């Protein structure tokens, strides 16, 4: 019996390979349907035979007696597992800059998710800024939904991006994607070595200020979509003390890692071995992205003293500077003690101060008190 947490590319691939090996598979996901973030709303389904439990969040677990405490819309369940695959995917890296808390400033993936969940974008002026291929994919999607993409600002230099483009011959499918994206984005202003310095507006974002080398310019927007990179959702793995964890790297590497995990969990190491070259190729692509789109030092200097770093508790940058560890900052300013449990401010603090948030305790997502109080009734599936 294989339980998989997460129904994104990795989880779906794991379910597929495990089912093909004859295993009984259950997949749990917080969303109502499979697909994760990248395939949200596309109507994808799991491999036939795998059971999907949607709108269910893992809040705690015990690797000793192999149970997961799962909260659903209406209650809580304890799930037992024989083998567990954590395919919890990643979230966007959010970094503070003046005005980033204004309504209308979203993550690129965040705005995409909202659009796929019913937010109309037609006619909206959207600037896409940050770093990485997600900027182009997001911009193309927004344009397709009828938005007016006014700018794509990539902080990596043109040299870095050109190097990335030139290296794409190694991954022909990716080269094809890139060409397709550039075609879809014809006419959209794209700048490199260009990054957002601040967002401005009364009750919502109205204009963005950019820097490009020694130049500065501003642009009027309805929405800002910002993407700096990805952070792996390793909280359950840390709670269950998983010895080694794969990182992030996009749908391809996620899918092959998932497929391998499913095979290993189903006892087919031999088949899993065969996928090693494909995995290595996908991991090389992920590493290439990390290399070419590494964040420049100026990004670390964007916050002003009054720029909010912890959004849950409104802790500004200046208050955090007095401390030399996340633990001390948390204790004395409440940074990281809000409902996001440090998911937004933690990676930001890591980039800004070099701090790591070591602690992981249940509940690993805010959960109803009743969920944590629920008796440990064995309910299997």
């Amino acid at each position, binding site marked *: 019996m294989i339980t998989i947490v997460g129904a994104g590319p990795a989880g779906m691939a794991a379910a597929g390979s495990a089912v093909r090996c004859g295993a009984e598979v259950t997949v749990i996901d917080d969303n109502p349907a499979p697909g994760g973030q990248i395939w949200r709303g596309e109507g994808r389904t799991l491999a036939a035979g795998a059971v999907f439990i949607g709108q269910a969040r893992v809040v705690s677990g015990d690797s000793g007696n192999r149970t997961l405490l799962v909260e659903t819309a209406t209650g809580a369940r304890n799930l037992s597992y024989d083998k567990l695959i954590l395919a919890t995917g990643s979230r966007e890296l959010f970094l503070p800059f003046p005005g980033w808390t204004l309504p209308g400033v979203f*993550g690129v993936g965040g705005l995409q998710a909202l659009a796929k*969940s019913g937010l109309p974008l037609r006619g909206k002026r959207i600037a896409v800024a940050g770093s990485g291929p997600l900027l182009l994919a997001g911009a193309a999607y927004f344009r397709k939904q009828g938005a007016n993409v006014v700018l794509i600002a990539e902080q990596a230099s043109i040299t870095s991006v050109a190097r990335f483009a030139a290296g794409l011959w190694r991954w022909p499918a990716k080269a094809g994607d890139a060409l397709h994206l550039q075609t879809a984005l014809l006419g959209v202003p794209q700048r490199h070595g260009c990054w957002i310095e601040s967002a401005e507006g009364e*009750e919502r974002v109205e204009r963005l200020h950019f820097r490009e080398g020694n130049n500065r310019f501003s642009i009027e927007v309805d929405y800002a979509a910002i993407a700096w990179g990805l952070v792996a959702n390793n909280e359950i793995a840390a709670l269950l003390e998983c010895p080694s964890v794969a990182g992030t790297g996009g749908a391809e590497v996620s899918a092959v890692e998932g497929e391998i995990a499913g095979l290993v969990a189903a006892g087919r190491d031999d088949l899993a071995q065969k996928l090693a070259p494909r995995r290595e190729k996908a991991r090389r692509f992920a590493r290439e992205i990390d290399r070419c789109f590494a964040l420049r030092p100026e990004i670390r200097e964007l916050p002003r003293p009054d720029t909010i770093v912890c*959004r849950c508790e409104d802790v500004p940058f200046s208050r955090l500077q007095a401390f030399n560890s996340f633990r001390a900052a948390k204790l004395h300013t409440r940074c990281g003690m809000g409902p*996001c449990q440090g998911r937004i401010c933690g990676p930001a603090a890591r980039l800004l101060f070099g701090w790591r948030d070591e602690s992981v305790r249940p509940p690993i997502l805010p959960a109803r008190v009743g969920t944590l109080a629920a008796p440990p009734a064995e309910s299997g599936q």
Partner: protein
Amino acid sequence: MLIRINGRPFEALPHTTVAAAILATGHTAFRRSVSGQARAPLCGMGICFECRVSIDGSPHQRSCQIAVREGMEIVTE
């Protein structure tokens, strides 16, 4: 379907999340931060908690993770 945001009726399409519906109807602020700043969704995937509103009397609901239902009462801060 008909939903109500801060007491006023709005039309929403099925399979729309509450967050998308609130944004689509022109509301900008979902909640107020602890120091009173206007806040709205950021991550769109249920981890930033900035999209929280009261739904049918229950506070702190992550609106980006919940689909609209006929007659839903939504209250922003």
